[in-house]
């Protein structure tokens, strides 16, 4: 299971890159992240404060092992702007994957 946290502005590009390497499904979540990237100051009626959590998109993709590297590479290349805040890719092991509609398991279920 690949989890990537990327910038909103790269989302469309990443989506296309993923489809090109044959990804057939993914799930996305609106998140707010914080890291090296500095936040920004917000001003509300005299109160000024630091916002450190910036909006990001989390993409989760279940892939078969043989596609893993290609997918990671696709994300890396398409999400990169070279500026701080480009985000992270995390890979975790998935025990099982089931397609609810058919009950298929494993690779067919992806």
């Amino acid at each position, binding site marked *: 299971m690949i989890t990537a946290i990327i910038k909103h502005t790269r989302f469309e590009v990443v989506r296309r890159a993923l489809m090109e390497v044959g990804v057939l499904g993914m799930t996305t979540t609106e998140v707010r992240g914080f890291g090296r990237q500095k936040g920004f100051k*917000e*001003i*509300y*009626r*005299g*109160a*000024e*404060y630091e*916002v450190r959590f910036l909006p990001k998109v989390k993409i989760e993709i279940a892939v078969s092992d043989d596609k893993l590297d290609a997918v990671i590479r696709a994300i890396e290349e398409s999400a990169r702007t070279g500026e701080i805040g480009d985000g992270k890719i995390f890979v975790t092991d998935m025990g099982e994957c089931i397609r609810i509609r058919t009950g298929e398991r494993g690779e067919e279920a992806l």
Partner: protein
Amino acid sequence: MINNGDTAWLLMSAALVMLMTPGLALFYGGMVRRKNVLGTLMHSFSAIAIVSIQWMLVGYSLAFGPDVKGIIGNLDWALLRNVGLLPNPAYAPTVPHLAFMIYQAMFAVITPALISGAFAERMKFSAYVIFVLLWSTLVYDPVAHWVWGVGGWLRYLGVLDFAGGIVVHATSGLSALAAALYIGKRKGAFKEPMPPHNLPMTVIGAGILWFGWFGFNAGSALSAGQLSTLAFVTTHAAAVSATATWILIEWLHRGRPTVFGAATGSIAGLATITPAAGFVGPDSALIIGTLAGAMCYAALNLKPVFGYDDSLDAFGVHGIGGITGTLCVGLFATLALNPAGANGLFLGNARQFYIQLGGVAVVAVYSFLASLVLLKVIDMIAGLRVSEKIEDAGLDISVHGEEGYYL
């Protein structure tokens, strides 16, 4: 004689002022955290009901009814007895008396709703209902009588308040300060960020308030003609110059102009011109608006220094604005534009300035102290503030059993 044009204007103005309270609901509602949006809307919305009923039962009579020693109206007009469809020449000779009554009702409604900004996000709703009822009866109605009632002592002394700088804004502003001090800070205030949950809602609210304010100020002419036109123009002039001033100062001071600031500035300008709208010219109004923007900007930015949590700045905008505007009447007023007014200091009549100062000072002190006492009493009887757990969870689910959004 009833004049159709005047009646049309006054009824329309009454509708506009009525709309201001839902407008205020939005203005305030957008500023709080999501978990308190309904509780905040409820403050304004329920005030319409509570105060209107009080007004028709006793409030109108206390404020405008036959005078008792300059202090209060008697109960001859309670339950709207003797308030009918013929004009009351003492107040508004060209419209039905009931039209004047309902127009004034809308003022009585919005005033306590303004205060609710001070204790937003932490007041018990039961305490709020009691507070609004008592405050209307013991603060708003008497002060309205003093300043506007035939026989009222401040009116008699020559205090000028065209549309409620004293009666509406100074009373609510100073009561807000008392409330903020008495009820204490929101949990986490000044320590963690509490950004407005929905600024577009606040901006809509400001737009609606601005729109309604034309009824508030220009309607206070109680007729459709030169005076209403003057008040309309000065209202807009002060609103725009305060908005521009706020944007400019914030840009210079913070490096960025905010729309929340612009909206706040507009309300500051509107509140400040209120007492002066029918007594000064458009050029003075532009200056008054500039002052309004600067003063209220300063007040809001100093709040953290003083450390009281006037959550939505009811004091910083309405208190400061109402006082500033009332004093400005004493500076800028001119008989040339309104013979029922006076000349101010800048036309050589320093006396009017002192009268204004005295008038607003008395009402400010009275409102502040009376509110403190009221809050103390309610606190002892019913408790004022929700529990910490409820404050954490938010008023919406805990007090009202609803959630604002299922988006």
